[in-house]
């Protein structure tokens, strides 16, 4: 990140750039946090700005000149970003290849848009509580919940494959927890529906949690091939992302990251949150599961 470097130099502290870029703003001092909140809102939802957004800066001690300057920096970088994206500007060859790689764009404008208020939603904390109540108070078995999730995922996958999975190539990427367990269930159901399914775990089967481990045994018993760590060599029509669930935190690492990178430009159906999207903070980490590359 070009300006991550400039920020690290100005601050004498590389961790600040990481915190700012990743959206981990809660650890920053309130004045800077307020400026970044203003910057993000103005960048993401410019039409939603109100005078209250300026008042929030005043409460942190910014006078009108400081507010004008903050606004100018936000506006200037949006200008620079549009120049860069609109004219195809690449970073200089002196930057590492990883920094120069253009990110695959998820094509968010192709997705149906639903207003935040039109859809009931739960926070990550509330979702944990729902899971806890289902198991501890209602007495539902984790196996039942996983089976329901995986069977429903397989049903959606069949729809996406044109109504029938017969003869279709499907790859399932599965993590070690409940999310991965749901993926293993879906793999079993799709295999039963005639699909050529293979599962890739992000770690050895011995590291699966107990219930997903039993789902792994069931999938193996149903003759579903299960590999781990290395992305499959196949070119599937559909990938099921069951790597990371709603409680994921921080950037994906190691084999998980490699598997996510492998999905780039391919068709993906995510069980729960797409891997790489941290719901608690709204941070979209690198790498993350996106949509089809346009």
């Amino acid at each position: 990140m070009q300006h991550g470097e400039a920020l690290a130099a100005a601050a004498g502290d590389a961790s600040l750039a990481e915190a700012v870029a990743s959206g981990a703003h809660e650890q920053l001092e309130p004045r800077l946090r307020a400026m970044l909140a203003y910057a993000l809102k103005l960048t993401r939802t410019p039409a939603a700005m109100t005078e209250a957004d300026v008042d929030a800066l005043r409460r942190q001690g910014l006078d009108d000149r400081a507010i004008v300057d903050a606004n100018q920096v936000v506006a200037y970088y949006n200008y620079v970003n549009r120049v860069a994206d609109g004219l195809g500007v690449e970073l200089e060859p002196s930057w590492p290849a990883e920094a120069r790689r253009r990110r695959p764009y998820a094509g968010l404008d192709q997705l149906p848009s639903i207003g935040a208020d039109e859809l009931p939603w739960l926070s990550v904390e509330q979702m944990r509580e729902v899971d806890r109540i289902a198991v501890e108070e209602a007495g539902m078995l984790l196996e039942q919940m996983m089976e329901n999730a995986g069977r429903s995922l397989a049903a959606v996958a069949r729809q996406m494959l044109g109504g029938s999975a017969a003869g279709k190539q499907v790859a399932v990427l599965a993590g070690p927890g409940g999310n991965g367990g749901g993926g293993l269930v879906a793999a079993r159901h799709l295999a039963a529906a005639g699909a050529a399914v293979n599962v890739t775990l992000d770690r050895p089967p011995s590291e699966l949690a107990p219930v997903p481990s039993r789902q792994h045994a069931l999938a193996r018993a149903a003759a579903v091939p299960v590999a781990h760590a290395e992305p499959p060599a196949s070119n599937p029509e559909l990938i099921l992302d069951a790597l990371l669930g709603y409680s994921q935190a921080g950037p994906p690492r190691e084999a998980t990251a490699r598997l996510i990178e492998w999905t780039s430009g391919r068709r993906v159906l995510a069980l729960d949150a797409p891997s790489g999207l941290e719901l608690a903070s709204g941070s979209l980490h690198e790498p993350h599961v996106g949509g089809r590359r346009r």
Partner: protein
Amino acid sequence: MVWVRTAPGSEQMANILASHSLNEAALEAHVRLYRTIMFGDSPLSRTEREAIAVAVSAANECFY
């Protein structure tokens, strides 16, 4: 490097500036704006200004 032609002599510039060097007046105004906003006198510290830049570019998923 960019999808459009660039002005002769722009090879030495940062790519972001070279990209619109065909409009020389806009390029000059851009450089002046950049220096004023990011390095000129301001109640905002250099760190605060660069932090805002990073937050905006990250929100735009742009490496610049």
